[in-house]
Each structure stands twice: as C-alpha cells, then as structure tokens.
C-alpha cells in the first residue's frame, strides 16, 4: 500500500462526507429525507457486513436487532419526560445487545445455511413476541412517540430540524464506519477474516473460534440496533413490520448488491436498492419488487462481487 493510494482513499472519503454534509442545504425536503434513510439502512447493512463479508456467516436475523433497537428507543422515549435522546440510544443499544447475545450464544454453534436458518427463526420468534405482546408493544399498530431534542445536559438543547437530524445521523454513521473499519483491520478483525477463509485452520492455530463468532454477532447486532434507534428517531414510530424477516432479506440484498466485505458497499447497495425502489414505484406502485427482484437475481448470477466488489482490496487497506 503506497502512501499515494492511502491519500486518494482519504481524499475520496473527505469529498463524500463533505457532499453529504452540504446535501440537506441544497436538496429538496423529499430527497433530504431519502438521503437520511439511505444512511440509516446503510448502517444496518454495514453492521451485517461484519458477519457476511468478514466472518463468512450470512445472517437472516438482522431485523430482530434492528427492531429491538427501535423498540428499546421507543421504551425510553415513552417512559421519560421530557424524552431524552441519550437514554433512547442507551435503551436501544442495550436491548439490541441483549438479544444479540442470546441469538449469538445459540446460533454460532452452527455454520453456513444452518446459521442462516437459525438466525431467521430467531428473528421470527421476536417478531411473534412483539406482534402478540399488544399491551407493551401496541401489537400490529406499533408505537408512536415524540422526537427527543438534541441536548447535552447543562450545555444546550435544540429540537431536531430536518437538517440537524441529517447531520446527527451522518455523524453517527460516519463514526460507526470509521470504528468498524478500524475493528476489521485490528487483530480481532483479522481473526474474523481467517475464520471466513478457513475455520478449521483458525481453530487449529489456537483461536477460540466460537468466542470470536459470538463477539462478531454481538458487535454486528449492536450496530444494527443503533440503526434501529436512528430509524425510530427519524420516523417517530416503531412497528412490528420492521422485525419481520423480509427486512433481514433486504439487508442481505443490500450487501450482495453493493459488494460484501467492503463496509461501504452495503451503503451503496442500500442506496442503489432504495433508488431502484423509488424509481420503479413511480410507475409500478407497490409491485416495484418484481423488477427489483429480477435485477437482484441477475446480480447474484452475473455480478457476485457486487457493485463495489472491484474495489474490495483497496477499501480494506
């Protein structure tokens, strides 16, 4: 890795972040909101990339972590007056981490498709629980709540407007990206990648593979929960639909479209998917998934590396 290529990487990073900072000031309301949503779904997809791309475990259960982050935030926002942003984050992350620990403990004993099916079934368990526990979760109707203010106790408190909300989301997603990037390059991340490449050999060298996998699932789950909290704050509701396994399926689609094992790829995949959906739903209304599904199948067959697959090595330096 030459110094120059590293420079190009950081230059590109700065330009993109700068564009995203300026975006809410120039974009009309609809596209501003759209961009914020892309960032949130991108964070969710990025969290799942830790498992799919770096550890080689395809999770079909990310909707559970996302949903628990969402309902955790909802619990904090509904139970405290005035609603506190930081408490919402704390509740959401703790809820997601707890669920992730539970799921990780059981599901990491299995590999490949069995891991995928187990995570899928776990997310359905949480879906059924949330759907039927009407007293606490509002059942099918979900929960509505007010958006908290962006505040640091004793210093300042400003209500979110669309632009500050976008910047807040952008800051969280960027920080998460840098943190996850650092983690994937750390010795821990290297062990995860060696599990992906050759699990038996990793175990033979002496790494406790199961423990690494549990931590990977939890790490992934916490960031998915963070995305759930952001989504709850942005849309001011929590609904069981977001815990349904189809959301997990879409997250896997984002990863495959964007390119697994790149961290940025899943965000690009989310953007691409949401743009396609937006474009097709203009004239196909709710049937947009027909062309989107066909494109997805074609990409699985012809472009298994995803949109950013060509840059995979470069992005991981």
């Amino acid at each position, binding site marked *: 890795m030459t110094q120059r290529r590293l420079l190009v990487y950081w230059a590109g990073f700065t330009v993109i972040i700068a564009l995203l900072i300026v975006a809410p000031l120039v974009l009309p309301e609809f596209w501003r909101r759209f961009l914020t949503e892309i960032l949130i779904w991108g964070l969710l997809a990025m969290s799942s990339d830790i498992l799919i791309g770096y550890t080689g475990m395809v999770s079909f259960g990310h909707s559970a972590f996302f949903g628990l982050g969402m309902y955790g935030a909802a619990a904090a926002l509904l139970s405290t007056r005035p609603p506190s942003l930081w408490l919402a984050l704390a509740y959401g992350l703790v809820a997601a981490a707890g669920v992730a620990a539970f799921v990780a403990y059981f599901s990491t004993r299995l590999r490949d498709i069995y891991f995928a099916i187990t995570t*899928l079934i776990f997310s359905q368990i949480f879906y*059924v629980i949330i759907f039927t526990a009407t007293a606490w979760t509002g059942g099918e109707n979900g929960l509505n709540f007010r958006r908290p203010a962006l505040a640091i106790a004793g210093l300042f408190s400003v209500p979110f407007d669309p632009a500050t909300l976008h910047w807040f989301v952008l800051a969280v997603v960027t920080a998460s990206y840098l943190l996850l990037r650092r983690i994937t390059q750390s010795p821990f991340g290297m062990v995860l990648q060696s599990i992906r490449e050759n699990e038996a050999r990793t175990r033979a060298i002496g790494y406790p593979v199961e423990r690494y996998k549990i931590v990977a699932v939890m790490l992934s789950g916490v960031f998915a929960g963070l995305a759930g909290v952001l989504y709850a704050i942005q849309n001011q509701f929590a609904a069981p639909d977001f815990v349904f396994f189809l959301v997990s399926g879409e997250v896997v689609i984002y990863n495959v479209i964007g390119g697994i094992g790149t961290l940025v790829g899943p965000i690009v995949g989310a953007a691409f998917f949401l743009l396609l959906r937006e474009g097709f739903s203009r004239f196909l209304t709710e049937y947009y998934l027909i062309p989107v599904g066909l494109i997805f199948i074609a990409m699985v067959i012809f472009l298994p590396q995803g949109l950013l697959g060509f840059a995979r090595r470069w992005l991981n330096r």
Partner: protein
Amino acid sequence: MEIPLDQILIQTINGIVTGMILALVASGLTLIFGIMDVVNFAHGELFMLGAYVGVLILAASGNFWLALVGATFLVGLLGGMVYLTTLRPLIGRDPLTTILATFGVSLVLQNYALWQFGPVARKIQEPFTGHFTLFYLEYPYYRLVIAGLAAAIIGGLWLFLKYGTYGIWIRATTQDRVMAQAMGIPVPWVLTAVFAIGSGMAAASGVLFGPLVGVNYAMGTDWVLKAFIVVVVGGMGNLGGSIAAAIFVSLLEAYASLVVSPAQSVIVSFVVLILTLLFRPTGLFVPTPK
C-alpha cells in the same frame, strides 16, 4: 388448568391433517435440498402459485381434481424453468448463493401474484362437503381426505424413488453426481426434473390446502418457514424424517394452541427447531450417525 379430553382429541386430528399437508410441502423441499444442495426460499411461493392456478382452473372447468392435476403440472413446469434460468448458473458455487437467488425468486413471484390477483383472498370450493359428528363439532370429511391424499402422493413419490427407473436415476445422482454422470445418467436433466417434481408437490399441497383457508399472495411465507423447520428437524434431505417431523411439529402446535393463542403457538415449533439444532443437528428422526 383443565383441558377437556374431547378438545385434545380434536386437536390431535387437526394436527395430523395439517401435518400431512406440511409433510407434502416439506418433502418437496427436502427432495430439492437433499439432491442438489439448493435451499429453496421460493418453495412457499410455489405453494401459493399452485393454489392460485388451482383457483383459475377450478373457475374455468369446475372440476377440483382437474385443478389439482393441472396446478401440479403447470407449477412443476414453472419450477423447471426457474431452475434452468436462475439455479443452473449457480452450480458449483457456495450453497448460500442459492438462498439469495431463490429469495429473489420468491420476491418476484409473491409480488407477481399480488399484481395479478390482488390482495383479496380467493376461495377454493371443496370437492365435497360432507360432515360427520365429532363430539360437539361437525367435522368435514374433506379434511380427512386431504390427509389421505397427501399421504398417497408422498407414498407415490417414495415408490417412484424406490422402484421407478427415473427414481433410481435420482437416487444415483444424490449419492454420487460424478459417478452417475459417468454411468450415462443425464445429471443436469435429473436435477431439473427433481426441482420440477418438488415444485409440483408444493403446488399440489397448495390446492389441497386452499379450501381450508383463503388463497392469498402472502400464504407461502408461513408455510416456507414451517417447511424449513420441518426439514431441519427431520434431518436435511431425509424424506421419512421430514414426514415424521411434520406431524410431530403440527401436533405440538395444535396442542399449544389449546393453551396460548394460535399466533403464539408457532413459537413452539421455533423452539423445537432451535433445540434440535443445538442437541441433535443431524435431525431428530434419523439414526444417530456413527
């Protein structure tokens, strides 16, 4: 809490009836998995499309049995085409890619059904409407006939695999693909045919099940999840195990719905699956591997 004996008996019969339909869905799925390592996420959608094709043929001809055979055949054909276009290019890649591809197929088929048939549930008229008295209930004969028919179809499949020439080809392909090819068995066509047979079985179960509940575009989702559970609990690729597991899981769910709401009773089968995976990942109903 006291549960009356008659309710338990009724739930036993209900459990066996749904169990037989589930066994029919799952045996198609396990056939496809066991023989070609394809995890078919679109299986529930083939089930749903089968029910819709049944509705259409029934509306055109008025004959339930024609609808059953026609839907099986047409959806089997569709399954063969899906295999040729999306799954054959993936041979030799990670089995996980087949999950992704079939997930895409299921999105397309489900939304196609929504587009073509709309969100309102359709009804399949049962071919006969007799009842018999079971305690305080008027129990329809049709339900028992479904269980019998499902058993007959599965039995037919078993006989075909055991004694039919093409069935022997299929088993040979399962055991050793390369050797089968070397012996002159057209392996690519065997794989396509297996996928078509599995799809046809899903369609048949859709038509049989249609009269019990409405036919709608989302009905496949529940069934594919249940079928996955059954296939894993029964041991992947093990036909007998899947049938036993289907009845076992359905009975458990039927009993659970006496105590909790039906929506919550599905958790029982989820828990069965997770326990199976933890303590006996090769499946509950297979001999312990040596």
